[in-house]
């Protein structure tokens, strides 16, 4: 009963928030609505007994990603509207057809995959969700985990290199004087 109420409440809130993100003119409203939607999505994860994923969702999305967007938006002139001229109806029809096909495929998917078997069972006696994820992540998924770590390191370095140059200068234009005056 409570699951039913929680599911529908979170569904309506999430869909509403994401509709605001997509249809809002103001970038700041869109960003705030996106942060709210991320929090509500973590509610689904707690409903689905994936506590670790819910906590990670809150920390990574509404903590790190939204803060990054907020800092990134300081570089842009967000008060000036971007002129958005949509001049072909074809995109609209393509979108509707694609979405309809998507919904049909999703509805059929559980029928086709009904005989799936669990390789890593989610429940053991006296082992919680976080502990179980740790067990699986550090045994069977160790190499993808390390690769993800390397990928995050590369992303961090590229983010620093791309943004941290002098803000009013071009990236490649005054390479010469940088080389001469480099002290760091």
């Amino acid at each position, binding site marked *: 009963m409570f699951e039913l109420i929680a599911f529908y409440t979170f569904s309506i809130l999430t*869909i509403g928030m994401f509709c605001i993100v997509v249809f809002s003119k103001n970038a700041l409203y869109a960003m705030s609505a996106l942060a709210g939607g991320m929090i509500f999505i973590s509610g689904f994860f707690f409903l689905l007994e994936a506590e670790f*994923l819910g906590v990670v969702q809150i920390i990574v999305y509404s903590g790190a990603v939204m803060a990054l967007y907020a800092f990134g938006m300081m570089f842009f002139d967000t008060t000036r509207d971007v002129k958005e001229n949509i001049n072909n109806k074809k995109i609209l029809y393509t*979108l509707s057809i694609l979405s309809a096909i998507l919904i049909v495929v999703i*509805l059929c998917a559980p029928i086709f995959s009904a005989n799936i078997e*669990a390789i890593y*069972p*989610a429940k053991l006696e006296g082992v919680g969700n976080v502990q179980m*994820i740790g067990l699986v992540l550090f045994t069977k998924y160790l190499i993808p985990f390390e690769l993800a770590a390397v990928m995050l390191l590369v*992303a961090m370095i590229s983010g620093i290199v791309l943004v941290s140059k002098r803000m009013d200068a071009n990236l490649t234009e005054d390479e010469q004087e940088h080389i001469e005056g480099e002290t760091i």
Partner: protein
Amino acid sequence: MITLTHYLILSGILFSIGLVGLMRRKNLLMLFFSTEILLNAVNIGFAAVSKFYGDLSGQIFAFFIIAVAASEVAVGLGLLVLWYKKTGSINLDSLAMMKG
């Protein structure tokens, strides 16, 4: 009773919203927001399948998707800042320099 189909329909609806945003908006920042919506919709689907089949692989995969999304934001936003410094615009049409 909430079944797997409920969650998958919700995931499909959210994915469709993201798809509409991705094709309708011309602001590059809004395209990034729409990408986040797409990734989150898929995450809900993975977590739901993981619960209703009692398999932990779905949650692990969603975890990796979150890692990919975080690095995508870091690199994409850096490139966007560079593009804005170069052209003074975050309109998608300003990227069409090859006139294809």
